[in-house]
């Protein structure tokens, strides 16, 4: 298993470690619930160094990325990022990612750890076919980058003291904005993004200074209640916010239309990989839709792969849970899963099969939880997330 540049720090902090996407990562330090609450009420610090960083540079980099990604890069001025998807010609998802324009004709793609190799290969293959391939330099720089996510309502109160910025202090960034700051004289990227439903920041830094940044943030945030947080809390937080996780809600047989991510597919930017299939599916209507549900009574938490049944006397199996957990905020079981569109409307009663028995649940509007983030977002409710 691979170890991030923060592995020693996790061991020293007494983290419980698990395998995730080929990496040995902290699942929690004290408890998932504690860390979840810290992020909702104060702040939490996550190691996200396992995520991949791919850089694209050159005069034709924007044109190439706009051809392989679904969102419209032309809407992205230097210094901003956007959530976007990498699709195959069938319109299904190779990966979901964040792309930032970090400078003129210079882009940073932050991709899922579990998909980095697939993404890098996919992009190189598509670049080889791209007519203006000579004007694009594509480089997997994941080994050079460490990354941490500082998330929670208290984060903006202490982050500025941890970095030197000649342009804009991190707390002055707006949602999705990215700035080059310095730490110990070395350049780092700080963006106002996250995967928790809270206000927060992600810091992408050279591997050799990621541990010092981690320690500096923990020290600066301690009075405000900052705690290190693991993948367990990251999963409950993102599930409450209804953010998809690749391998659960997204895979190479599922489209952004089915996943409710149509907002991130730009129809008026010209052709892009997957466009024809996605347009046809949008016109015909998808056969399944991602829906969010909550248990209506006390039950065991819903888990991935549990069956979803329609309610009523002629109950039939209509789908499968893709993500499910006990919501620490609601104190109830919550989940996401694909169902036929006629069952996907809010307030539709359904049942979740838990160990052979049906338990009542109801489809609810996404997301379960919307925190400070909404004040930073211009996107319609439910689609303004970052990854």
């Amino acid at each position, binding site marked *: 298993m691979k170890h991030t540049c923060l592995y020693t720090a996790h061991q020293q902090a007494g983290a419980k470690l698990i395998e995730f996407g080929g990496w040995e990562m902290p699942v929690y330090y004290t408890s*998932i*619930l504690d860390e979840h609450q810290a992020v909702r009420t104060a702040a939490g610090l996550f190691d996200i160094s396992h995520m991949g960083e791919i850089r694209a540079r050159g005069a034709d980099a924007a044109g190439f990325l706009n051809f392989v990604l679904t969102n419209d890069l032309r809407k992205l001025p230097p210094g901003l990022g956007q959530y976007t998807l990498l699709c195959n010609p069938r319109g299904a998802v190779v990966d979901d990612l964040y792309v930032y324009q970090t400078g003129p004709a210079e882009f940073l793609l932050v991709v899922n750890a579990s998909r980095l190799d697939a993404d890098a290969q996919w992009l190189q293959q598509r670049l080889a076919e791209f007519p203006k391939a000579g004007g694009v330099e594509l480089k997997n720089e994941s080994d050079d980058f460490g990354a941490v996510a500082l998330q929670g309502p208290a984060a903006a109160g202490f982050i500025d003291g941890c970095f030197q910025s000649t342009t804009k202090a991190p707390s002055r960034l707006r949602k999705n904005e990215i700035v080059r700051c310095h730490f110990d004289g070395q350049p780092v990227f700080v963006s106002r993004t996250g995967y928790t439903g809270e206000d927060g920041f992600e810091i992408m830094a050279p591997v050799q200074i990621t541990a010092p940044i981690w320690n500096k943030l923990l020290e600066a945030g301690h009075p405000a209640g900052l705690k290190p947080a693991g993948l367990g809390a990251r999963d409950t937080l993102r599930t409450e916010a209804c953010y998809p996780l690749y391998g659960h809600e997204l895979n190479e047989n599922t489209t952004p239309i089915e996943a409710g991510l149509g907002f991130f597919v730009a129809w008026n930017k010209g052709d892009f990989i997957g466009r024809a299939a996605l347009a046809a599916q949008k016109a015909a209507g998808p056969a399944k839709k991602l829906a969010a549900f909550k248990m209506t009574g006390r039950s*065991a938490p819903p888990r991935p792969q549990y069956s979803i049944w329609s309610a009523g006397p002629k109950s039939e199996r209509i789908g499968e849970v893709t993500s499910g*957990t006990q919501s620490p905020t609601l104190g109830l079981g919550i989940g996401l899963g694909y169902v036929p569109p006629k069952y996907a409307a809010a307030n539709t009663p359904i049942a979740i099969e838990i*160990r052979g028995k049906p338990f009542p649940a109801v489809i609810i509007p996404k997301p379960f939880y919307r925190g400070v983030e909404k004040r930073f977002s211009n996107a319609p409710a439910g689609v303004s997330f970052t990854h």
Partner: protein
Amino acid sequence: MSAHVPSDLKYAKSHEWARISGDTAVVGISDHAQHELTDVVFVELPAVGRKIRTGESCAVVESVKTASDIYAPLSGEVIEANPQLAQHPELVNTAPYGDGWLFKIKLADPAEAGKMLTPEDYTKQIA
């Protein structure tokens, strides 16, 4: 962090404990087990009257992250299930040997207890 292993209990390899008095036993999960599970959010207990055999899966403890089967450490009939756990599953974490007990059984064969681990053996197992 070393887990608490009370000296007056018997233990199963699968981390259940039994407090035996006469022909009944109270059953729960060890401090080590609750610490490994963390954040218990739901407990499914066997119905009163159910006959269970040693090693049989008879309860489920669900943490935020995962569902874990609980195995009967002794054979017998379930005569009580902890009613507090429906509302307060977190008692399994906060008081694994006290209010977080799971169920009580009337033992089919009290001599079976001799096959369970002593506190010393269990301490070695989790070391």
